[in-house]
């Protein structure tokens, strides 16, 4: 059983939550408790954000710990530097909860090494859709700033999948958490959630002595509201994927660019089956298929690609919504995958990105399976 942490430290928020977070990280770099920080930074053109691993304290001033958009999944950035094993650097990664969950999934698949990484999360207000932000980045920043100042979740301007997110706060996997929606906007709660997190606070001489129950209660209430919204939205999404005809309709505009796959943090395979030579049939087999089925749309496997991806990664889907952002024809891929993912994860009694050590469902088994699984394989015994 994981030890639960119920205390936090209140730190003043007079300079704004972003500055407060940056100052804390700078302090850690100064003390040498951390060697580098993985954090988003606005690109010179001002219309996007990039992940930067920063060792130089001065550069941290230009970083933006809470970026309004999510052009690259933080888990991908983390994977790109820790995939081949842990280094000597002590890294802190400041990421959205969905990015942390993706990182946990990737660590189970040996694509991320978390040994020298401290995961820092915060109460995420959601992210803006890329398309909206790109139209006017300046306006986007303003909209997002106002979201950050609110205590409630405003779902109007964020990505649809953020609007129905019910896992936007502290996670079992986060080492340290910034409770932004504390009682008053004057304070931020700094909550240690693991030995690593407690260690960092000790180095900074911050004592987590405040009770966090009122913050936690607020988060619980917000979560309940979100859960309800999620359910309502899924009722609608359901109709988009149920049955062959709706599936064809939903994906009819798909141009087969595979953007959704390449941005997906948990679609990690070095080579995807659908891009391999095996998936590219020769003329003879195309003709045979046409004969068998009466017709075939080309390039083949357009819809099979999406169904195949649902099977391969719905159990690990963290509902980050990058796929929808990347879709050139605005198919609500993320909501479809969230819906399917929620249901398959329920069957396997698994929640993606929650527990660090737990293996992904397809890499393990039980001799006596759970009720959900037994129900589905009923009839195999005869």
């Amino acid at each position, binding site marked *: 059983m994981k030890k639960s942490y119920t205390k936090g430290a209140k730190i003043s928020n007079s300079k704004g939550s972003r500055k407060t977070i940056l100052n804390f990280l700078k302090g850690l770099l100064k003390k040498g408790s951390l060697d580098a920080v993985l954090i988003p930074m606005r690109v010179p053109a001002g219309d996007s954000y990039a992940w930067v691993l920063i060792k130089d304290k001065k550069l941290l001033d230009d970083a933006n710990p809470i970026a309004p958009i999510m052009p690259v999944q933080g888990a991908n950035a983390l994977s790109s530097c820790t995939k081949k094993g842990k280094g000597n650097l002590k890294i802190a990664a400041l990421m959205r909860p969905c990015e942390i969950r993706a990182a946990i999934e990737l660590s189970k698949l040996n694509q991320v090494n978390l040994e020298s990484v401290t995961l820092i999360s915060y109460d995420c207000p959601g992210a803006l859709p890329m398309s909206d932000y790109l139209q006017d980045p300046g306006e986007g920043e303003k909209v997002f700033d106002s979201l950050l100042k609110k205590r409630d979740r405003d779902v109007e301007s964020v990505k649809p999948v953020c609007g129905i997110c019910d896992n936007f706060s502290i996670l079992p996997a986060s080492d340290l958490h910034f409770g932004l929606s504390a009682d008053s906007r004057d304070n931020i709660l700094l909550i240690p959630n693991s030995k690593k997190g407690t260690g960092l606070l000790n180095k900074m001489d911050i004592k987590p002595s405040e009770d966090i129950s009122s913050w936690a209660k607020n988060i619980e209430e917000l979560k309940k509201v979100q859960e309800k919204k999620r359910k309502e939205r899924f009722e609608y999404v359901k109709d988009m*994927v149920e049955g062959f005809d709706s599936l064809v309709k939903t994906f009819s505009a798909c141009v087969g660019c595979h953007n959704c796959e390449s941005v997906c943090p948990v679609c990690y395979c070095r080579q995807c089956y659908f891009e391999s030579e095996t998936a590219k049939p020769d003329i003879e087999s195309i003709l045979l298929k046409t004969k068998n*089925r009466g*017709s075939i749309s080309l390039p083949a496997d357009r819809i*099979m690609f999406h169904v*195949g991806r649902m099977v391969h990664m719905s159990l690990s889907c963290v509902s980050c919504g990058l796929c929808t952002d990347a879709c050139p024809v605005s198919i609500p891929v993320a909501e479809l995958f969230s819906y399917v993912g929620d249901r398959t994860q329920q069957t396997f009694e698994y929640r993606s990105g929650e527990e660090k050590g737990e293996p992904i469902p*397809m890499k393990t088994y039980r001799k006596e399976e759970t009720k959900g699984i037994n129900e589905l394989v009923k*009839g*195999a*015994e005869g």
Partner: protein
Amino acid sequence: MKPEGKDNFTPKIVGYLCNWCTYAAADMAGSSKLEIAPELTVIKVMCSSRIDFNMVLTTFFNGADGILIGGCHPGDCHYDKGNYYTRRRFALFKDIMKILKLDPERLQLSWISASEGNRYAEVVNSFTEKIKKLGPNPLNGNPYF
């Protein structure tokens, strides 16, 4: 040639059978001269856990009306634990087919050991009957898939 109506419809059924048990059971059923529905095309696999959902999908999308997966009884796997993985994978396949309403009844898993020739014939015959009742795969003739 497209199947004409449910009544005189000859289904195409593909059976992925484990080399160590169900395939041997099929062999036994054959040598015992049992009556087995002829619509099943057998593909031998070294282990039922070798079957990925892409194989299942490809089979369905290429015009099969039903798929039978045959493996060893839990606990009897030639590779010790292969069929435990099969069970999980199959549950996932079935769950996705259920969620997407892609006719989950067209996919069946059966544990049939090497000595169960009779059971093999029974399973194949009843599955074929079931598919005949279900009719042709609705994907056939859909030009967008």
